[in-house]
């Protein structure tokens, strides 16, 4: 048996049945990391003493005594004196950190190339980007270098690399998971979530990490407890046309406009047909303000970034501010400008009002439908270096994921096919705190298709 090919749920089952020990499990993953990490640059730090369920954790998330550099030179040697809440919660469930993963610096980027430690390479084709900013967390799951991983998603940073690397990625609803210990990027948007080998795994990890801790005031009082229903609300079998009966799935026309690659569009349309076959009613919806989401996001997010990154002063930890990478500097500049005297109302307040309109669009759509589906990314993984000189082109690669963050929704990316031999992810957006329904849709799709079984040849 190839231990490293098992999902989290399968791994737990095998451990329970004593098919292998936790020591053998860690040995298998560490051997694989040793063999392949140089090729993909997914891990920045490897923990050889991992003795639980080996999970990979984005470098942005604080781990006590384990380097947490956030892909940046400025805190290159930083070892937090405390664990993030999600780490404490995972430990309580028998999970250990097998390594800290590569990422765009301070979670700012869509390709992994803004890491100060070199880009993560896509396991499907090492000349392509892995997506970002949770680049290493996606590549590590795709290459089976961990059982599952954690990432963070501020504008798509879990869903987009999951899509580009062909794994499952969940951005939980804003407030579902405590952000305590995740180095803050844009506090009104950031969420921690899992990247996994299956939909069921994502639901289980969410159940482990969700819930309040008294340290994140925006945290929802309830723990997500829908893991067990993911399986039970579905019937099994390829031909079952009942699984998604009575469910209305919205398809926003704005997610299929200019900029969407034709081959990706074909794959997404086929996935939607599959959902229809499973009994769902497909309804056309409109999100008229979503086309303004990148513009609003690139005011609100950098404003929050400029404030959050002010803490890097080289006094309590880290180096001096000239050590920030180019993209961090760019966003600090943009945010400082938008918040500066004389421009605040024209930029920051204006964007916050447009955010309200974007949220209202979703509210109206969710009056009619249960979930909204579409592409995660307008294209498949692109060549390393292709967009690094054109920040705006890079920003636009998040056009389908950013609206969900602005509205605080939950969103799932699941493998739904291939274009040009590279994976394509289907995005399933749900109402805030309605993760159960997006898992239901994702799980039914996964059971009815074989896309998630295709693995990269390393």
């Amino acid at each position: 048996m190839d231990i490293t090919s098992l999902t989290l749920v399968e791994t737990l089952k095998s451990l329970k049945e004593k098919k292998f020990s936790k020591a053998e499990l860690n040995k298998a993953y560490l051997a694989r990391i040793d063999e392949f990490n140089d090729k993909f640059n997914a891990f920045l730090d490897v923990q050889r003493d991992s003795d639980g369920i080996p999970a990979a954790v984005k470098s942005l998330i604080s781990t006590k005594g384990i380097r947490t550099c956030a892909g940046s030179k400025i805190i290159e040697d930083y070892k937090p004196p405390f664990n993030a809440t999600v780490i404490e919660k995972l430990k309580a469930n028998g999970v250990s950190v097998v390594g800290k993963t590569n990422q765009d610096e301070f979670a700012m980027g869509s390709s992994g190339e803004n890491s100060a430690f070199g880009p993560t390479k896509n396991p499907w084709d090492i000349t392509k980007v892995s997506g970002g900013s949770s680049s290493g967390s996606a590549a590590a799951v795709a290459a089976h270098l961990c059982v599952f991983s954690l990432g963070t998603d501020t504008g798509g940073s879990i869903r987009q690399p999951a899509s580009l690397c062909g794994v499952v990625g969940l951005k939980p609803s804003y407030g579902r998971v405590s952000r305590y210990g995740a180095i803050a990027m844009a506090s009104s948007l950031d969420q921690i979530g899992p990247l996994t080998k299956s939909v069921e795994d994502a639901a289980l990890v969410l159940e482990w990490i969700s819930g309040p801790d008294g340290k994140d005031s925006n945290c929802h009082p309830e723990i997500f407890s829908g893991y067990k229903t993911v399986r039970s609300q579905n019937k099994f079998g390829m031909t079952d046309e009942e699984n998604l009966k009575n469910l209305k799935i919205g398809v926003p026309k704005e997610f299929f406009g200019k900029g969407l690659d034709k081959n990706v569009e074909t794959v997404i349309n086929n996935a939607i047909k599959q959902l229809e076959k499973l009994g769902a009613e497909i309804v056309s919806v409109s999100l008229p303000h979503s086309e303004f989401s990148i513009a609003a996001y690139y005011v609100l997010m950098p404003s929050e970034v400029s404030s959050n990154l002010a803490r890097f002063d080289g006094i309590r930890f880290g180096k001096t501010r000239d050590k920030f990478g180019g993209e961090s500097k760019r966003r600090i500049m943009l945010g400082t400008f938008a918040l500066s005297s004389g421009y605040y109302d024209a930029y920051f307040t204006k964007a916050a009002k447009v955010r309200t309109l974007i949220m209202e669009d979703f509210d109206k759509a969710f009056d009619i439908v249960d979930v909204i589906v579409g592409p995660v990314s307008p294209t498949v993984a692109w060549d390393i270096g292709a967009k690094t000189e054109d920040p705006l082109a890079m920003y636009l690669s998040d056009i389908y994921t950013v609206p969900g963050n602005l509205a605080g929704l939950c969103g799932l990316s699941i493998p739904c096919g291939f274009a040009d031999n590279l994976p394509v992810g289907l995005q399933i957006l749900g109402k805030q705190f309605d993760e159960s329904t997006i898992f239901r849709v994702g799980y039914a799709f996964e059971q009815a298709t074989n896309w998630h079984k295709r693995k990269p040849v390393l």
Partner: protein
Amino acid sequence: MPLTLDQVKHVAKLANLPLSENEEEKYTQQLSAVLEYIYQLNTIDTEDVEPTYNVSRKSNVLAPDVAEECLSQEEALANVPKNEKGFFVTKGVFQEE
């Protein structure tokens, strides 16, 4: 609205961000392009729209005022670049730069 080089220098000073001349020029051009893109927000009528700063719509979440365990001095200073006799070392506030 294009940014001028002087504005970029001013914003960098506000942000406490040391930039090279090369960076100042590059950001003048790149940030202008982004601001030009952002300008499309002005085509939307937001006259009667309330701004959203936080989707949870919560404000003033209070915690009980009780002392909790916190980091030891040793832990708090573990990552300090300059540690003098158990203190952080900062720049003088009233000194000339």
